[in-house]
């Protein structure tokens, strides 16, 4: 039978069974989901796809930015002049402080040298334009127009003219992703200006922040200003972060619930300053030495007790 060993005609070929394909694709999807989330080891894949997607996205965003530009252009002379006047006025009101700032900084440096304290680190960075908000509805992130090409690295803080906006979390060749401080569980170490008390502030995901783990009787008032404490080695100390707006003291819980709103225009479009990474903090003293000492001490005590 010559005809029997013929292959079936190609229109019966359907490849692997759909259920097998489904299992395969689902396994791969779940694997990359877990790898991306837990190990952050797929950045190269993300960057290479972004290289293709990024230009298309920028083109797709142009109609919107053109409309913005046109509306700004047609805003009219009057409002611009008014804004100009306001800016001049603001400049004049801050002039006395600013003019003395250079003098004060020099004096501060000299005094710090006298006290043999290390000098304060100067903040510098690069201005970048916010391109668009990331569409992921589960998080609060924005994309800015500077990336690896401009030397941005993950972890750099971003500020605007009023205060801290967020932190660079992912870097692409020509853009970078900034996670806003209002993103859920985004943490900023802060200090209360009035009392000097240190704590950490957590994003809530709804545009507000929460100061957690403060005792119910903590000295916090509505209107208190929180600034970065600089303890983390990421944020320089002294940048305004948030203002306390609501305090719930419930005796049933050991911690007060303290809600804050960000000071910077976190949810606004505009320009941000991506600050350069801080100089590395000095090494932490080794913990094991202290523990060993105490355990030795305990042992000594025990021995003594045994002797007695």
């Amino acid at each position, binding site marked *: 039978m010559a005809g029997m060993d013929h292959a079936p005609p190609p229109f019966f070929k*359907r490849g692997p069974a*759909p259920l097998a*394909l*489904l299992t395969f*694709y*689902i396994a*791969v*999807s*779940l*694997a*990359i*989901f*877990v*790898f*991306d*989330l837990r190990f952050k080891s*797929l950045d190269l*894949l*993300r960057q290479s*796809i*972004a290289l293709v*997607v990024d230009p*298309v*996205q920028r083109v*797709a*965003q142009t*109609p*919107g930015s053109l409309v913005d530009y046109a509306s700004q252009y047609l805003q009219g002379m009057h409002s611009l002049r008014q804004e100009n006047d306001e800016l001049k006025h603001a400049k004049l009101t801050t002039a006395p402080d600013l003019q003395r700032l250079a003098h004060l900084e020099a004096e501060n440096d000299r005094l710090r040298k006298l006290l043999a304290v290390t000098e304060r680190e100067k903040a510098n960075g690069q201005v970048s334009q916010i391109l*668009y*908000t*990331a*569409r*992921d*509805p*589960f*998080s609060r*992130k924005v*994309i800015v127009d500077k990336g690896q090409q401009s030397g941005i690295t993950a972890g750099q803080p971003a500020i605007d003219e009023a205060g801290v906006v967020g932190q660079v979390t*992912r870097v692409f060749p020509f853009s970078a*992703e900034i996670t806003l401080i209002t993103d*859920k*569980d985004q943490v900023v170490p802060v200090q209360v200006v009035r009392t000097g008390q240190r704590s950490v502030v957590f994003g809530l*995901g*709804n545009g507000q922040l929460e100061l957690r783990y403060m005792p119910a009787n903590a000295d916090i008032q509505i209107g208190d200003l929180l600034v970065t404490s600089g303890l983390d080695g990421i944020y320089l100390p002294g940048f305004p972060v948030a203002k306390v707006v609501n305090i719930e003291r419930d005796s049933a819980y050991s911690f007060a619930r303290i809600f804050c709103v960000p000071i910077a225009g976190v949810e606004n479009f505009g320009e941000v300053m991506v600050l350069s990474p801080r100089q590395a903090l000095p090494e932490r003293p080794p913990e094991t030495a202290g523990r060993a000492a105490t355990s030795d001490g305990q042992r000594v005590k025990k021995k003594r007790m045994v002797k007695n």
Partner: protein
Amino acid sequence: MQPTFSSSRILLPVRPWFIFLSLIFAAVLNFLPTANWPGMPDWVALVLCFWSVREFRRVGMGWGFMLGLLMDVADGAVLGQHCFAYVLLAYTASSLSRRILWFPLAQQALQIMPLLIGTQVVQALMRLAVGADFPGWGYFIGPVVATLLWIPATFILLLPQYRPVDQDPNRPI
């Protein structure tokens, strides 16, 4: 192939480049700034669902996976989130294909709705399981709008396949 199996109208065969172009166009629609408006449908899910129902031999889970990867990177979401949802969508749509195409368009849309809502629910569950914030109920309006768009989408995406109603009987082929 007919517009629906009960129709007597015969369509021209689909052109592969048109499928490709429509999927890319849907992705670009997703990239527009309008995607942040409440109730905007996920265009890629809609078009992918359409082609998985109509042409499951050409568009399937492989396309779903690649488009998912694209949308994950573009959205800044966790990699694999859209992949998973789109692969499931393509699979269910193609396995229901032979049933769905028997119905008139409005009833097709009703059968599509659970698939599109499921795509959104699966993504929400994946992200909530790993500790993301609930995006609000507006997130689930998108698929309902997409369901309403099933009828115009079918009309537009089948346009290149319609042949003229009054055909010339003397034409050689």
